[in-house]
Structure formats: C-alpha cells, structure tokens
C-alpha cells in the first residue's frame, strides 16, 4: 500500500501536447503509471504516443474515467487548469507548474471550497509510490519500493524538488524503501499541507517512518510539528533548508523568505525538536538518521 497514488490511478495529463507535458507523460507511463488521457484545448481528437487527447478534462473524465490529473499548463493558465480538473470531479490534481501568481491561487483555494479535489502543489515535483506509479517530474529510478508485504516503508514529504531526490537517494542507498514521496511545493499558497500528508501516512500501514523536509518561510512546519506531537507516533526525521538565508531575500521558491522576522529555520527546527522529531543539522544525514530512528 501507499498513499494517494497507486495501481488504481488513472492519469490525465493537462498540457500533454507541450514539450514538457509530452516528455513527462511518457516518463510516467514508462514507470508504470496508467496514463489514460491528455487534455489540450483545441487538440481534441489527436493522440500523443497512443494517449488520446481531449479538449476538456470533463470529456477526458467521461471517456476514460481518469481519477488523477497532472498539470503542465503555463503559469498564466495553470489556475484555470486546476479549477477545470476540480470541476470535472477528478479526485487528485497535481500541479507541476512553477510561477503561478498568488492572486490566482487565492481564487483557486476559494473555488476548491465548493469543488473539492486533493490539490498537490503547485510548483512541486509531484507524488510517487515507488514501484507502482508516479505522477510528476521526479526521476523514478532513484526510488526504492517497499518489499512486498513489508511494513517498513518511509514516507517522504517536502517543499523542495532536488533536495527531496537527495533524501530519497540517501534512503535508497541504505536499503530503506519508500512508501510514497510527496512534494507539496515551494509556493506560499498551495493545495496540500504537511499535515494533510502526515494524516494520510498515519492511515497507511506500510509507512513506518517519515522524512519531512521544510524550508524557511511561513509557519507550515511549526503547525506540522504540533500535529505530530499530538497525533503521530512513528519516527519523523526533520530538516529545514535555509538556515543561512538572510531575512527579506527570497531564496528561489516564492515561499522561501524570512519576512517580518518570522519563518526562520531556527524557529522551525526548535518547534520540530520540541515536538520530538529527529532534527538533523546536516542535509547529508537524513538517511542515516532515519535508519537509526528505526533501529537499523
């Protein structure tokens, strides 16, 4: 088992006819994901390497029963794409697009109140359940599946892309398989929080521990730490990127900024320590710390 993404996933790719959309739709299919449809307005009736393309998500849903969407639509149109997916009743919407205006995401949040979908991202690498299915741009081959029937999988949650791959690679090299890895994205307004993912891991018997990678900015890590202390009894290894970042400077991700003296790495690490997480100072020790926490 795993969370959110698995053998039952039937994926539609919004923006499939673009260069990146095509590339990653095929990479997901090669990994084993069932990619059942693509959507590009005006390109209905075409196909991309055997994947039928529809004009709208509603048509794709009707024709293929797709239950998850991966979005590669350019930033000016990405918010619309998310809302289209939600309105079509797609259960899981994963938005890879980076650079969506905050105001657009505020509208999206409002819309999702009456048209629920599990939105992951935007500006995220996606979600992968190793060995089963991946929805996103992460390199599948660095991951290690949990042994069949075993209950010792590691869940990974992160606001970053390549830093997540780094953590996954450390786990893989130590023989620690991953149940599911979720990139929640580096934007200030996103669909899925650390707590949403942790709740799902709490209900997943194959997840034995969690690696949680945060960044400076906002207070999502502090909220997650408080939730863990109250509700989560499996080991959690935590790291916060950006200890050396000066206040007021945005570190690449739109959400990674220490503003008004809030959102510093020190505060977040302190909150995580106080909640009983295994906090690492060095990003090179994520894997070994997890192994130790599990008694390996």
């Amino acid at each position, binding site marked *: 088992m795993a969370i959110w993404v698995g053998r039952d996933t039937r994926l539609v790719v919004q923006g499939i006819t673009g260069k990146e959309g095509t590339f990653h739709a095929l990479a997901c299919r090669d990994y084993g994901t069932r990619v059942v449809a693509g959507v590009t307005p005006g390109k209905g009736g075409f196909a991309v390497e055997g994947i039928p393309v529809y004009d709208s998500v509603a048509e794709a849903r009707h024709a293929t029963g797709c239950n998850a969407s991966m979005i590669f639509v350019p930033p000016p149109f990405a918010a619309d794409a998310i809302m289209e997916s939600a309105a079509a009743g797609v259960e899981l919407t994963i938005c890879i697009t980076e650079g969506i205006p905050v105001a657009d995401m505020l509208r999206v949040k409002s819309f999702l109140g009456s048209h629920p979908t599990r939105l992951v991202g935007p500006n995220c690498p996606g979600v992968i359940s190793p060995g089963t299915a991946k929805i996103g741009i992460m390199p599948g081959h660095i991951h290690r599946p949990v042994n069949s029937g075993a209950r010792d999988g590691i869940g990974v949650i992160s606001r970053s892309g390549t830093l997540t791959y*780094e953590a996954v690679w450390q786990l893989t090299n130590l023989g620690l398989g991953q149940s599911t890895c979720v990139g929640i994205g580096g934007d200030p307004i996103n669909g899925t929080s650390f707590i949403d993912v942790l709740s799902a891991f709490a209900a997943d018997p194959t997840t034995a521990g969690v690696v949680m990678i945060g960044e400076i*900015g906002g207070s999502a890590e502090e909220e997650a730490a408080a939730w863990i202390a109250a509700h989560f009894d499996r080991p959690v290894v935590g790291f916060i990127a950006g200890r050396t970042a000066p206040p007021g400077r945005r570190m*690449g991700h739109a959400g990674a900024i220490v503003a*008004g003296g809030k959102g510093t790495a020190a505060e977040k690490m302190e909150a995580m320590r106080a909640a009983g997480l295994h906090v690492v100072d060095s990003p090179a020790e994520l894997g070994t710390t997890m192994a130790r926490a599990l008694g390996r």
Partner: protein
Amino acid sequence: MKIHEFQAKEILRRHGVATPRGRVTEDPEEAAQIALELGGRCVVKAQIHAGGRGKGGGVKLAASPAEAREHAARILRMQLVTPQTGPEGQRVRRVLVEEALAIAQELYVSVTLDRHAGKPIVMASAAGGMEIEEVAARDPRAILRQEIEPLLGLLPFQARGVARALGLAGDSAARAARLVAALAAAYLATDASLIEINPLVVTGGGDVLAGDAKMSFDDNALFRRPDVAALRDLAEENPIEVEAGKFNLNYVKLDGNIACMVNGAGLAMATMDIIKLYGGEPANFLDVGGGASQDAVKNAFRLLVGDPNVRAVLINIFGGIARTDRIARGVVGAIEELGSVTLPVVVRLEGTNVEQGREILRQAPFKFIVAEQMADAAEKAVAAARRGH
C-alpha cells in the same frame, strides 16, 4: 519586485488614497521650487528601496525653500546607509519633496498575504512610526488583523472596523476607513504582495494621509502588469543579480567567499547551510534549474567569478531526469569554453550514472576537486577557500 515611495504613492493616489502634496526630483534647484509651491515648509526624503531612511539621515525637515535646496543637495550626494542597506549603503538618485504635515497621531496600516489563512490581510496598529515587528513582539494584541475575502475585497464594515480599532472617531474614522478600503483595492488590483503605510498620519485638522508608502509586487504576476513592471529600478538592485535574471538564473548575493552552484532551490539552500556547518561562508545562493544544462552552468560560472570575494566554487548537482554523466560533460564543457579559470572548483555530483560522471570529471584537463557526499563536498570547499587566501 520593490518600487520607490514616490511611485507607490502615485499608484495609491490613483486608487483614492490621500497622500501629502509633493513631487520627486533629481535637482536641488527644483527641490527649492517645489518647496516654494508647497509654502516653504516641507520634508525632503531620499528615494531608495531600503527602509530606515530617517535613521541614516535621508529624511530632513526644511523650513524654507533655501533649506530644502540645501537638504536636497546633500541627500542627493549621499551613499545612504540604513539598517536595511548593508554597510556599503545605497546611492541616492532622487528626493521626494512633500508638504510638512501637522501631525497629531502616527498610526500603522498594511496589507499583505497571510499564508496560514490563505488570504490577504489588513494589519493595523495605533503604534505608528515603529517597526511593526517590534510592536508584535511587545504586544501582539496591539495589532488588528482583518482578513480580506479575495473575491469580494475589503467590505465597508470591515474597513470601518479597522478605523475603530485604530482608535479613531468621527470624520477621521470615516476618512481612515476610506483610505484602508482604497489600500485593499489597490493591493488586489495590482497583484501587490505588500503595501505598508507607516506612518499613517492623522493631522491636527483630522485629515488622514499616507505619510510613507512601501509597496512590493508578486514577481509571478508582472507579466500581466506591464505598468507595474515598468517601475522597476535596476539601479537599486545588485548588478550580478540583475545579470543572473537575464539568463533565468536565480541568484542572491551573500557575504561569504565560497560560491555555490546548485540545481534546485531547496538543495541550493541546503548546500549553503552545510557550507556554514563546516565552518565556511557561502558567497551566494544560486539555482541553475533542475536540468543544469551546459549553457546554464557556463552562464552561472561567469556570474560567480564576477564576485571578487570568491575564493572557491562548489558545484552540487543532483542528476535526476538529466543523468549525471551528461551533467558532468556540461560542467567540463563550460569550464573549457570559459578558458582561464584559476579558482579551485569542487564538484559533487550525485544520482544516476554517478560513477561515469565522476570519471568524466577526473579525466578532464581542468583539475576539479571531485567530492562524493554533500558533507565531503562542503569540507573540501571550505579547505580550498582557506588555501585560496
């Protein structure tokens, strides 16, 4: 993106925010002329992006046009150092000359994004003129927070509530409510990320005006706000950061001597952190993008060596979709194209085909220092930077 006070006030005036009368100028003679039009008494304010201008001597009260000329002449020659500029300061190119208000009260109001609520909020406090962080630290209850429904804007009763919370009554309360509503409207209409009015001035006559105005905007929305994008002042930004932007590289200048080149923002921050953990100081944040193409690496390298403080370079790339061997060829190719690189360059590649990648680096004519783990890379970079002194 940040803009100047005078630009922010222009935008806000268009949305109905009351501001002091005045004009911006680059010329002391014109400053005297503006002062004359304003009736003599005026304030001369340095226009730079950094805050804390008053503390650095960049804001002066003048009693006459002659004094305005004097202040303007001196401020326009200044390399203004404030708590926010860093020790090198910022060259002043313009001054704003404004009427001096008869200040009865100084209040605070701002509009910004509340990430937790997922909505913009108005923050208001009766303690104007102070840093809002200090107020928040001393007494969080002294700050009113009013959420804005993004689809509806700030509603009239909410604006009235903000005015009441500021302790205002009568005509002043009505004026403040109008002003706050106008701020919220301006915020939503321009894709702003911050509007801060500190102080919000209540005059002896009961008028309510924006004494100062700080505004910044969502970079991701500039594509649809050409009028805002046109207000960008490159002279206020770090030249290397401006150059980086042209190549779609994400660069932030820091004070250390170990330059970093990393793919991905999170990994780039983590690399800075581990350098510090091993006793070094990062010279910059630099994200070359997930794929780390040869062109991106080459352009990034040119930027990094443009910082005279740099004593060593650390390249940390996780090869995901782009395999490590291909990235290694890109790094080698970039150094060859650049020619005379004399700085020590530590390279740490990880991911698929990593053995081939490292072999390509070892075989290259340029003597890379090849590292294996992130910790190993940080240690080697710190050592190389020390030798480089």
